[in-house]
């Protein structure tokens, strides 16, 4: 009975994905993989997503640790602030980034006087991805870090370990699942980012045209190129999700 009730939604989720894969022949994929435009989009996407995940990992881990361990006033507000970009429509996120970092933006205006312009650069692509994907890492890493027993930290501190050593030798090894899983989710979300990218970073092959943008533009010009990129994105995201599931499933209770 439960299975019957759940099946329609599952079929609905599976059908478009299957349809996309079936409509893309291996010959088409092989043909377009040889094209400069396609390779540029793939290369740019992979590079920017990796930089994003790394950046979020470096800057987000202290935040995740803070949320995992400390109680403080305004905690709810911080959590909402971290989650907010994920709930915002990506186009809104793009507009907001433009208002902040654009040439006439809040911070962008200042930066421009020093000759730094962010919009329309690959850096803008990374910023757009970080804005929308950071929460995926922070939330998952927070859960992983929170699962590490306080007593272990305290024992290490009693034995004379400094905070950095505690983090490196106690927290990290025990919370690695949450950290790696979170980074993978962040990477996948960054890979799929579109709305904020096209508004803030623009669309230029090799510089800001990531795979999702190439799919969008390609749909209007060359459906087969769009299908090729879409198929690759499908396979990549599927692989990530399977990996993340495997990593997080074996977490000790």
């Amino acid at each position, binding site marked *: 009975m439960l299975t019957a009730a759940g099946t329609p939604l599952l079929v609905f989720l599976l059908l478009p994905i299957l349809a996309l894969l079936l409509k893309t022949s291996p010959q088409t994929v092989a043909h377009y993989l040889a094209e400069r435009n396609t390779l540029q989009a793939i290369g740019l996407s992979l590079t920017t997503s990796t930089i994003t995940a790394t950046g979020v990992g470096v800057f987000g881990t202290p935040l995740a640790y803070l949320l995992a361990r400390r109680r403080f006033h305004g905690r709810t507000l911080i959590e909402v602030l971290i989650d907010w970009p994920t709930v915002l429509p990506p186009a809104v996120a793009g507009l907001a980034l*433009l208002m902040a970092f*654009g*040439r*006439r933006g809040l911070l962008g205006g200042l930066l421009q006087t020093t000759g730094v*312009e962010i*919009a*329309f650069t690959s850096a803008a692509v990374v910023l757009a991805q970080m804005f929308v994907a950071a929460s995926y890492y922070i939330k998952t890493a927070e859960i992983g870090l929170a699962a590490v027993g306080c007593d272990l930290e305290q024992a290490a501190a009693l034995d004379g370990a400094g905070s950095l050593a505690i983090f490196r030798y106690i927290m990290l090894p025990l919370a690695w699942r949450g950290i790696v899983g979170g980074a993978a989710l962040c990477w996948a979300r960054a890979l799929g980012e579109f709305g904020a990218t*096209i508004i803030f970073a*623009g*669309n*230029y*092959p090799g510089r*800001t045209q990531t795979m999702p943008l190439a799919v*969008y*533009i390609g*749909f*209007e*010009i060359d*459906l087969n190129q769009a299908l090729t990129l879409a198929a690759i994105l499908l396979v990549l995201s599927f692989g990530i999700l399977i990996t993340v599931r495997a990593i997080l499933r074996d977490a000790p209770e």
Partner: protein
Amino acid sequence: MKRLLSLTEGVCITLALCACAVAPPSHTLTVFAAASLTESFEEIGQQFEAARPGVRVFFNFAGSQQLHAQLEQGARADVFASANVKEMDVAIGSSLVVSGTQRVFARNRLVVVYPKGNPGQIAALGDLARPGLKLDLADPSAPVGQYTLDMLGEMSQDDSFGSAFKDRVLANVVSREENVKSVVAKVQLGEADAGVVYSTDVTGQAAKELWTLPVPDRYNQIAVYPIAPMARAPEPALARRFIDWVLSPVGQQTLAKHGFITAD
């Protein structure tokens, strides 16, 4: 009891009147039109609705190539108005439009726009090739993008600009937008130093924030806009009426008011 009855009667009559007032339209006309037609077609749509009570006109504005892609994938529309002959010809080739039913209803020309305040310090057309200038153009797949490339090609054949002009200008392009309105928006925001759009796009709010540099006729591209009823339109008669309206003196006057060059 009597008061309750008259109150109930009153409520019923009011509800019935409301129901009549918000009765669903008897006919809906779906028009897929190029993004540059936004302002003019919305006004024409209102005129058409006013002349035909019970008819609602629904517009889908986007880059002509995007509209054609949607139609190709099965989107239902009654009328297709494109910003170039190419997309209409492709639609005819795909049997979305019956050959011979298309009519040219307007023409447009290009103009160089730059943000109010001129951050790129543009004084003449030659400045478009200045290294370091940030130029925002439409993607070549959009009609205005192709027209821009053609215009640059014409300019490159002129000695005053030189044969390398087009390449140097293209080296300044920072983004290729999917439709002309995105170019307008980015230049308006000051994100780009300049852009190339239709002269009709310098309108409304945009007109206050954009300064323009006209392009002489000898380089300027005349964009030709065809309109046609869809082969499998849900409302074929209404589609023809709408196209007649666009081609009528009222429609043509409205287009002219928004800066278009009329069909003849």
